[in-house]
């Protein structure tokens, strides 16, 4: 499995983002305190964060950056 993006960042922020989404749902009265959604969403967030980091659809190397850097040529003696 090759990650184009940042998998550790993706997992951590995926967990936190979906955890706070669950808290938002709780605080705005969408789900009750004993809802399993509060537990499940952060775990789903880890998976989605990893998938997000694997696909890495933002930015990315442009065509020109795929070209190998010029070889180092030592200055003439």
């Amino acid at each position, binding site marked *: 499995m090759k990650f184009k993006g940042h998998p550790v960042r993706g997992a951590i922020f995926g967990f936190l983002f979906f955890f*706070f989404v669950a*808290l*938002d749902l709780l605080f705005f009265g969408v789900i009750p*305190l*004993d809802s399993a959604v509060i537990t499940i969403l952060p775990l789903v967030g880890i998976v989605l964060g990893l998938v997000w980091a694997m696909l890495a659809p*933002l930015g990315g190397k442009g065509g020109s950056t795929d070209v190998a850097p010029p070889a180092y040529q030592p200055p003439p003696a």
Partner: protein
Amino acid sequence: MVRRTLFAFAVICAAIVFSAAASGAAPTSTLGPCEGSATFQKGGFTVNATEAGTVEVPRTDDVDWKGSITGPTGDNAYSGNIKVDLPPPFGSLSIDSWSGTTDATSNSGTKHYDLPGAVPANVEFTVRGSHSQGSFNCSGHVTVKIKGSSVNAVSIGSLAATALTGVGLLFAGRAKGGV
């Protein structure tokens, strides 16, 4: 954040539980030989032990509560507890418990409660109670939420944290070495 939230709910539940079920007999949907009621003075309503559904309570109030159990005679050992249901797999949070010996089969009183503004309104939570006296057992539960707007410091803070962590998640999707 989680600990603060749980503590806040514990405060709410303790207030309601003391007002409605200090005799171990008042939560709604009771099973067993218990009866109880709680009258919210400012709210202007009474909650009976047989009532189902969600009870919306004011943030601050004085509650006249009473409870009774049918069956026990003479001195009997009693025990009970009040818990708040948490998301699985966390089970429940114990709010209060009691035990001892008594020959009383009823109790009543008035309890004042005042929940801090940081405790979120409009959030449903389930409070479970049980009471045993002699060979008689009661159990019940009530779904409670505080009246008021969902918008407060806690919910706004949660929204801000959602936005911040969302930005962090977006950046995790930037390709390594990308511009």
